[in-house]
């Protein structure tokens, strides 16, 4: 069996004095595309932030490994340098700092995206539209030369045309180059464009099921809602 790129063992995380993640077990291998579906407040974004080491979230129990090395206590910047990056759902504005300035500071390789050209001389994320934010995020993470990219709700706030543009970019710049991708999504629109190898469903801080058939998972969720997933018998491989 292929060695996992990222492995999470029994991860319990608290945020705002409340336990949000209640024993997450997760693996992703090199070049794999996985999806993580779940309703609002199920803990999807917290998992992404915890993987990246956001100090706001405290690890109660459990361990994270990247390329076989334990990274549970690593600072966010160290994780980024190892190649774990996150595309934020709502990235904050950095006032007074142009996107080109930020890229100059963080870049480990030069990246050109046609769609980002008009954003380079603007202040990072300030008054960006939903689509502009996603492009700004994409150019930043590509400049970091990542091994694993986590997309937190990349499909939120995008119309279908924009979603297709963003999906094509992800495919061209990441998937075709064998970068691992974890797509966190509420509604799952982006999955039709990127076709994950494995789809996880998260409820109340736990990954409750996994399937290699994303269409089946989406169909069940659309038909019955997330509560049905708890009782679902035909989705394979309970963790």
């Amino acid at each position, binding site marked *: 069996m292929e060695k996992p790129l990222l492995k999470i063992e029994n991860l319990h995380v608290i945020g705002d004095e409340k336990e949000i993640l209640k024993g997450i077990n997760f693996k992703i291998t090199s070049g794999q595309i996985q999806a993580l579906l779940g309703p609002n407040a199920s803990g999807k974004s917290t998992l992404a932030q915890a993987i*990246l*080491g*956001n*100090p*706001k979230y405290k690890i109660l129990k459990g361990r994270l490994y990247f390329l076989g090395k334990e990274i549970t206590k690593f*600072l*966010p*910047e160290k*994780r*980024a*340098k190892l190649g774990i*990056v*996150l595309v*934020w759902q709502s*990235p*904050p504005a*950095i*006032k*007074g*700092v142009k996107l080109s*300035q*930020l890229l100059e*500071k*963080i870049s*480990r390789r030069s990246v050109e995206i046609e769609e980002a050209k008009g954003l380079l001389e603007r*202040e990072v994320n300030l008054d960006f539209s939903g689509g502009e934010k996603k492009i700004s995020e994409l150019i*930043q993470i590509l400049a*970091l030369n990542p091994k694993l990219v986590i997309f937190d709700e990349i499909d939120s706030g995008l119309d279908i045309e924009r979603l297709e543009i963003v999906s094509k970019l992800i495919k061209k710049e990441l998937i075709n180059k064998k970068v691992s991708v974890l797509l966190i999504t509420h509604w799952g629109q982006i999955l039709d464009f990127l076709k994950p190898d494995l789809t996880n469903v998260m409820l109340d801080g736990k990954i409750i099921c996994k399937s290699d058939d994303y269409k089946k998972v989406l169909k069940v969720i659309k038909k019955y809602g997330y509560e049905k997933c708890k009782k679902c018998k035909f989705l394979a491989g309970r963790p």
Partner: protein
Amino acid sequence: MVTRNVKSVNFWQVDHKIKNISQIPGNVILPSPQAWQRFKWSRIYFEREPREGYFIWIKKEVDFPLAACINIASPKISQDLTNLLVIEKGIKVGANVVCSAIKNNLCGTHKAKGKLVLKNGSSLEYNHLHQWGKKDYVNPDYEFILEKNSKLIYTYKNLFPPENLLLKTTIQSNENSSSNLNFIINGLSSKIGILDKVNLLGSNSQAIVKLRLVGRKNSQIEAISIISALSPSRGHLDCRGLVVDKKAKISLTPRLICQNKNAQLTHEASIGKISEEELTYLRMRGLSEKEAIDLIVTGFLGK
């Protein structure tokens, strides 16, 4: 290095010695004591006989910015400068003035009393850059006299402040004159006092004052920014502070004084800390905590 290319500047003083004066045809640049002797009219502005400093009299348009550089290079020097810049009617000019200590540990004193006179219809864009050592004491006290229809853009930038900085700036704004003032100060274990006052004396005079103050390490910054309107005029204060470290303190007082019913004065003021979300975001892009703070501060100061 701040002193690079100083030989090409119009006025260059190191400690108490004038190193170079480069005249511009049609205009006059002198040490202030010589101007006091030579031009009797200058005494109205100097107030007292100057010991040192620059006198620049712009009578003819200059198509490049004037440059002046005043350095402290030796230990325990105490400069007592009196500067005068006079711009004649209708002339537009830019000026870049650098005052600095060339080392960090000279324990120098730099006192500068300056008067800048913008005559009818003239215009000045003045960039004032300060860079000091940790143990210096610095006290600039500048008064700008804006005659009718004149226009001033003044930017004071101090990213390497001394241990003690007392900065006083006064603007006398006459009919139809306008001023745009920017104070950009990065406090690093410094005690900083700022007092700026704009007197809107003439009708239709205007002023915008912008303060950007950063408190790092154990800086103590106290700023009072005043616009006083005596005529139908408009003024706006925009004061913002960013407290970076636990021991730093910023006190901001915007004050509007209105003595004319047709004047319009407004202000906005805020002091905040660095957003944890922004910090985490930048760290997730691979910047260390210090690099991320430096970048946020750079953006805040608009460097």
